[in-house]
C-alpha cells in the first residue's frame, strides 16, 4: 500500500533541500542518536538518516532496557570498555536529558554448586573490567534481598551499579537534544547505497529513498557514521574491503502488568552462555515486569516476530532463576534483533580502507549502556578528521514530556487550571492525559504515529494495550498534525490503522 507522504519533511529541523552535510549518520537508534547528540557539540553540519518513521524503531525499542554493570564482557574488549564507561556516564546524562533511570542493582543467580567457579570467574572479569561494588552473596542474604528467587539458588553475584532505564526515552532524548542543537533528522529516509565521491577532498554520496515510495534523494557527506544496526554490515561492505558480517540474533520477551512489577526488585540474571546473558527477569523503570530474551539467530533481518517455540522457551527458562512468576499477567510479547558481529565485539572506529567512514557496528548488548561512550569515541574521531571546534551555544539540557503523575495534587490542579488538557485522561491504564499526548505531537521530532505517541507518553502501553485510547489518540493526531484520520499509521508507511470509511448509502437507499 502506498500512502501519501508523511510529515517528517515539514518538521523545522528536517530540511528538504539541504543535501550536503559534513557528517551523515545512518540510523536513528540509540547509538546513532547518541552520536548525533555528541556531534552537535561541534560546529559541523550533521544529519541523521533513518528509514523508520520515527527514531528508536529498531533494536533500540526492543531490548532488555538494562544499564549493565559491565562484568559480562571479555576484558580488553570494546564492549567491556564502553560498558563500564557508559555506565559511569549515565547518572549525569540522565539528569541532563531527563531520562528515567533507576539503579536497582542486579543479581546473577547460580543454581548449582558446580557452577560456583563460573560465578567467581564472572566476578573476576568484572573486577578486571573496572566494575565496582561487585560481591558474591550466599543464599541467606540472597533470599532476604529477593524472596522470589528460585528455591535452587545457591548464591549470586551482586552488582549494585546495574540499573534500569527507558530505552525509548533515552533514544528520543538524545535525538531531541541533537535536534535542538542543529542536527537535521530525516525520518522515512532509507539509505540504498553509498559510494566514495571522486572529488578532491573525498566524501561520500548517499543514495536514499523515501520509505514507502520510489522517490529517491542524494545526500553527500564528508564523514559517514554507520550506526545502521543489523544492516551496518551492508553499508560497511559497500565502501570497505574489510567486510563485516552481522547476524540478527532474535530475542523474544514477555512484558507483564504492573501488578507483577514488584515480583523482583533487582534485575535477576542467569549465568551467561555463549549466546548471551540468558533470560533475565527484571522490573522496568516504569514498574512492569520484563522477562527475556531468548537467543536465536535468524536469516531475515526483519524477523521481529515472536514464535511459539520462543515463547514456550521463555516460560520454561524464567522459572530457573525466579519462582512463581505470574505469567497470566503477560500484557504483551515482542521480539528484538541483536546486531551480532561475528567477531563478537563492537566495531567502533574509522574503517582502515575507507577514510571518513566511521563504524558504530555490531552494537548488541550492552549497546544501550555503551551508547554515550561509543558516541564520545566516534565524536572524537570526527573531531580530529574535520578539525571541529566546540560550539559556544551548545544546549546540554533537554526536558522530557511533562509528567503530571510526578506532581503533587496541588501542582497538578494548578497545571490543569493553566492547561485544561492535562485534566483529560486519554489512556486509562497508564493514566496519560491529553496534555502529554499533545506535547508528544507538538515537540520537535514529534510523534506522527500511534506507536510514536506510545513510546513518548506510554499511552497504549498498559494492560489494555491501546484498545481504549487508540481511537482517542487518533483523533488528537488527526487534529494536531493535522492529517486525515485514514492516513494515521501504527508505525509508518504501510501500517495504516484504517482501510477507509464505510461506503455512504445514497439518498435512495442504494449504495
Amino acid at each position, binding site marked *: *500500500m502506498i500512502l501519501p507522504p508523511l510529515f517528517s519533511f515539514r518538521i523545522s529541523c528536517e530540511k528538504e533541500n539541504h543535501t550536503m552535510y559534513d557528517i551523515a549518520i545512518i540510523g536513528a537508534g540509540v547509538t546513532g542518536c547518541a552520536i548525533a547528540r555528541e556531534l552537535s557539540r561541534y560546529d559541523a553540519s550533521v544529519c541523521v538518516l533513518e528509514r523508520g518513521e520515527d527514531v528508536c524503531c529498531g533494536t533500540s525499542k526492543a531490548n532488555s532496557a538494562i544499564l549493565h554493570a559491565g562484568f559480562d564482557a571479555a576484558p580488553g574488549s570494546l564492549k567491556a570498555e564502553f560498558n563500564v564507561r557508559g555506565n559511569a556516564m549515565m547518572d549525569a546524562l540522565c539528569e541532563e536529558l531527563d531520562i528515567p533511570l533507576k539503579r536497582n542493582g542486579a543479581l546473577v543467580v547460580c543454581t548449582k554448586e558446580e557452577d560456583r567457579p563460573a560465578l567467581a570467574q564472572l566476578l573476576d572479569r568484572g573486577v578486571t573490567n573496572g566494575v565496582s561494588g561487585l560481591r558474591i552473596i550466599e543464599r541467606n542474604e540472597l533470599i532476604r534481598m529477593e524472596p522470589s528467587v528460585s528455591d535452587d539458588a545457591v548464591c549470586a553475584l551482586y552488582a549494585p551499579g546495574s540499573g534500569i532505564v527507558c530505552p525509548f526515552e533515552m533514544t528520543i532524548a538524545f535525538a531531541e537534544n541533537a535536534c535542538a542543537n542543529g542536527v537535521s533528522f530525516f525520518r522515512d529516509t532509507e539509505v540504498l547505497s553509498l559510494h566514495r565521491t571522486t572529488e578532491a577532498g573525498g566524501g561520500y554520496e548517499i543514495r536514499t529513498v523515501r520509505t514507502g515510495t520510489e522517490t529517491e534523494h542524494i545526500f553527500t557527506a564528508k564523514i559517514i557514521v554507520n550506526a545502521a544496526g543489523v544492516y551496518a554490515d551492508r553499508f560497511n561492505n559497500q565502501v570497505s574491503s574489510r567486510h563485516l558480517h552481522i547476524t540478527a540474533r532474535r530475542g523474544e520477551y514477555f*512484558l507483564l502488568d504492573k*501488578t507483577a512489577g514488584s515480583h523482583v526488585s533487582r534485575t535477576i540474571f542467569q549465568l551467561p552462555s555463549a549466546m548471551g546473558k540468558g533470560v533475565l527477569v527484571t522490573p522496568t523503570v516504569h514498574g512492569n515486569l520484563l522477562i527475556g530474551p531468548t537467543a536465536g539467530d535468524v536469516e531475515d533481518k*526483519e524477523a*521481529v*516476530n*515472536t*514464535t*511459539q517455540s*520462543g*515463547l514456550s522457551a521463555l516460560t520454561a527458562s524464567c522459572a530457573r532463576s525466579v519462582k512463581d512468576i505470574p505469567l497470566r499477567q*503477560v*500484557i*504483551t*510479547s*515482542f521480539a528484538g534483533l541483536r546486531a551480532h558481529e561475528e567477531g563478537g565485539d563492537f566495531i567502533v572506529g574509522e574503517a582502515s580502507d575507507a577514510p571518513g567512514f566511521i563504524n558504530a557496528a555490531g552494537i548488541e548488548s550492552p549497546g544501550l549502556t555503551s551508547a554515550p561512550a561509543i558516541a564520545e569515541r566516534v565524536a572524537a574521531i570526527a573531531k580530529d578528521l574535520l578539525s571541529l571546534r566546540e560550539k559556544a551555544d551548545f544546549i546540554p539540557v533537554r526536558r522530557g514530556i511533562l509528567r503530571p503523575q510526578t506532581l503533587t*495534587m496541588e501542582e*497538578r*490542579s*494548578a*497545571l*490543569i*487550571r493553566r492547561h*485544561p*488538557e492535562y*485534566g*483529560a*485522561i486519554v489512556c*486509562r491504564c497508564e*493514566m496519560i492525559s491529553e496534555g502529554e499526548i499533545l506535547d508528544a505531537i507538538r515537540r520537535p521530532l514529534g510523534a506522527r504515529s500511534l506507536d510514536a505517541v506510545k513510546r513518548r507518553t506510554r499511552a497504549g502501553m498498559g*494492560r*489494555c*494495550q*491501546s*484498545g*481504549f485510547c*487508540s*481511537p482517542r489518540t487518533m483523533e488528537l493526531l488527526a487534529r494536531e498534525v493535522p492529517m486525515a*484520520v*485514514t492516513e494515521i*499509521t*501504527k*508505525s*509508518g*508507511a*504501510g*501500517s*495504516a*490503522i*484504517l*482501510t*477507509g*470509511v*464505510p*461506503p455512504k448509502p445514497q439518498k435512495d437507499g442504494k*449504495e
Partner: protein
Amino acid sequence: MKNHDLVIIGGGPAGLAAAVSAKDHGIDDIVIIERDKEPGGILNQCIHNGFGLHTFGEELTGPEYADRFICQTAARKITCQLNTMVMDLKAGPDFKTVTAINRKDGIFQIHAKAVILAMGCRERPRGALNIPGTRPAGIFSAGTAQRLVNMEGLMPGREVVILGSGDIGLIMARRMTLEGAHVSVVAELQPYSGGLKRNIVQCLNDFGIPLKLSHTVTDIEGTDRLCAVTIAQAGPDGRPVPGSETRYPCDTLLLSCGLIPENELTRGAGIRIDPVTQGPVVSDSLETSAEGIFACGNVLHVHDLVDYVSLEAAAAGKNAARYIRGGRSAAGGTIAIRPENGVRYTVPAFISPDGTDETVTVRFRVDRIYRNHTIAVYFDNTPVSRRKRPVMAPGEMEQVILDRKKLAASPDLHSVTIRIEAPA
C-alpha cells in the same frame, strides 16, 4: 473537598440503573462520575438491537436502551459528572474518598457515605493471549473496531478474521459484513462459543460465516499491516495440532477473547477480588469487602444481557440507599455459597442471614455445555431444590433464586452449594 451521600463510579447501564434505584429509595444526594463525554457507556456503540426484551418487553438498540435510563436519571435530576476520570478510591467506615480529575476542576476529592462501583469491563488484548507472530497494524479488539465503525464512521479493515466467539466478536462479524468487509472465519479456542446462541444464528449463520470451534490463531504475518493469520485446530490441551494449519490472507484480525472486569480502583481500595470473576467478592446485598462500597454490572462479573445488569444495579442502588439511611453495613454474611461441579463461580459469594429481601438471586456461569442437566441446590448437605435445564452453556448466565424464608428456617446453615448434576 465535596461531600455526597452516594458516588457512583461509571455512567454506563449499571451506574445509571443504580442511581435511579438509589434515588427511588430515598437518596437525593447522588453523583455519577463518567469518564466519557456522554452517559450510556458501551451501549452507545452497540447499535444492534436485542436489548431490553426482559426490562421493557421490546427490542431496543443499545443507545435506545441507554436513553431510557438516561431519561430516568434526568427526570430525577441526578447529577452525572461527565469527562471525569476517577483516579483513586479509599475505603473507610465513616466515608469513602473518591479522587477524580477533569479539565474544569483539576484534581478533586469527594467524601461519600457510600460508593457503587459500576466501571464495567474491558477486552482481553492480544498480548494476554500469547499469540506468536509479528505486531502489525490491523489487529483490534472487537470492541475497539465496533467503536471505530459505529461511532467514528471509520473502517478498520476489509478482509477480516475473528478470533474468539464472544458476543462482541459475533456482532462485529455481522457489522463488518454489512459495511462491505469480508469476514472469512471466526475461530474459537474452546469447543463451544463464548457468546449467545442467538448471536451465532443471527450474526454468523445468517451470513454464511463459518465458526471453527477448537481452533486458534497460531501465527500472525505482516510487518506493516497484517497480511495473513494461520489458524490451527487446538487439541484437548489447548495446543495447536501439527498439520492442521490453514493460512488465511487478511488485513484485519478482530479479537473477542474474553472480557475482564475493570477493577483497578477496587484493588487500590484493598477490596477482596474473586480470582474467577476478577470482580469483587460481594454479599447478597452486593456489598464488597469494604463497608459501604457496593458493586454491580460487568465490574462485578461479566453479564450476558444488559437486562440483568440493570436488575443487579437496581439491587445495588437499593442496598446502598439502605446503608446510607441506616449507616450500617450488611456485610459480614456468614452463609457461604459454594460453586461446585460445573458451576464456575457465584455472585453473590455469601449471604447475610439478616437480609430483608424476600429472595436472594444467585447468578453464575457453567464451565462447559450441559444438556438435560440439573441445577441442584443444597443447604449444607441437604438437597433443597433441583431444576432441570435443557441446555446450559458458558456463554449464558444461569441463576438460582433462594427463598429467604427457607434460609431463615435453617438457623445453623453454614453453606449453600450449587452444583450441576447429570440426569438420574
